[in-house]
């Protein structure tokens, strides 16, 4: 097992408060919601497990809960759309798409799943279009609404992780950045 301090990114002998804060930051970053429909979701889940284990070790079986295991999306959906979900989970997107195209009843879930397939492929524009249709057909459904809302950022909120965009990206800065870059191979240093 890896050094739990290293996993949490805190120095040896860090206080309980520091450990808790590091844990909370990391857990937020690698939370399954951040990686929903991301092809690397399994790696994020592994990372989350590692973080939970490290925290548990350091707090001696403390109360991190089981946030990694509490998220289990392998739910029981029936019917042919359930089969599509299963194929998506297996990562067989072509088969899932073929199966989906063979279904003539285009309900909200059908559009949602089409969006999921597109998102898994990285086709964010098609994903967003399908999520929007699903959400407008069934406005009460939380899953569809959330997907439509996060399609714009691929589910991963990079601005909220540790790099908040604090304002100063105006033109002057960009301009000076590019000018500095132009100097890179001219500067005598």
């Amino acid at each position, binding site marked *: 097992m890896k050094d739990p301090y290293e996993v949490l990114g805190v120095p040896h002998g860090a206080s309980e408060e520091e450990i808790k804060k590091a844990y909370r930051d990391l857990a937020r*970053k*690698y939370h399954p919601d*951040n*990686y929903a429909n*991301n*092809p*690397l979701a399994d*790696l*994020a889940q592994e*990372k989350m497990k590692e973080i939970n284990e490290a925290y548990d070790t350091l707090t001696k079986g403390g109360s991190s809960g089981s946030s990694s295991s509490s998220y289990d999306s392998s739910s029981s959906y029936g019917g042919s759309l359930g089969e599509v979900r299963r194929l998506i989970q297996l990562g067989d997107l072509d088969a899932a798409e073929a199966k989906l195209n063979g279904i003539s009843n285009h309900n909200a879930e059908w559009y949602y799943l089409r969006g999921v397939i*597109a998102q898994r*492929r*990285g*086709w*964010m*524009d*098609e994903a*967003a279009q399908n999520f929007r249709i699903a959400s407008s057909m069934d406005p009460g459904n939380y899953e569809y609404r959330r997907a439509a809302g996060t*399609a*714009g*950022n*691929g*589910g*991963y*909120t*990079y601005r909220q*992780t540790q*790099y908040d*965009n604090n304002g*100063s*990206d105006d*033109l002057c*800065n*960009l*301009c*000076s*950045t*590019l*000018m*500095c*870059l*132009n100097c*890179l*191979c*001219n*500067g*005598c*240093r």
Partner: protein
Amino acid sequence: MFGYVLPRRDKLSEKDTARYRAAYCGLCRCLKERYGFRARFLVSYDMTFLYFLLQEGEVKQPLRCFCPARPICKKDCLPPDGVMDYAADLSILLSCWKLRDAQRDDGFSRRLAAKLCLRLYKKPFEKAAALRNNENSVFSEQLARLNTLEDKHCESIDRAADAFASLLKACAGYHTDETLRRTKGLLLYHVGRFLYLTDALEDLPKDNKSGAYNPLRYRYALQDGKLTQTDQTQFLETVDASISMAASALELLPETADREILRNIIYYGLPAVLKSVADGSFRKRGKGK
């Protein structure tokens, strides 16, 4: 390739700025060592990014070396290694494929210039293609696919971008480790998607005038040759989604010494470039033209 993959200097520490410069100079030197003087002109910030992305292991100390652009003083440059060689080889391949592409659709004088350049880089291209056979065949295959999509006036921006994104993804082929390859492959896929779509946005007025293919012309109903406000917002969101995906992949990679440089490029550099391309200030102000 496009010059869109840049860090934001004002948010880069002094140490990282020096590292970034040294990598750029190192790549330039490596190009010369492997392909002769003319290859120096193909050094780019895009490939400097690739160097940092593929780098793993310990920090390399820079050497002092001669720079023909500033012959009176020596410059720091990172020493050549497996990754640097790889980035140099791919610089040659990608530049030549871009020139071949320019032969297809630009105006007469540019076509001629591209042709002459291609002749100049014929030998380096052959050498690089032999060294990186796998990557080169993916580049060739995906560009052929892209050309077919363009000829068919593909209406899906995702599908058009997919060909170029898959091309860039092949650069993760440097790694043999499956997880690294997968993670960096996804990151590069989305950087590729970002590049293709940002380029399409920048070229939209020009393509609209000349009638050349641009995925945005077919995906959206343009008004006066421009995207409507709503469409532009949605378009920027979908490009931003790719930045997010690249960030989500970056955070799953093992920590390396130059991680902050990569974070800077993805978290700050790409959004800033997108923003300035969207409001038309990218070339005008950035490059001082």
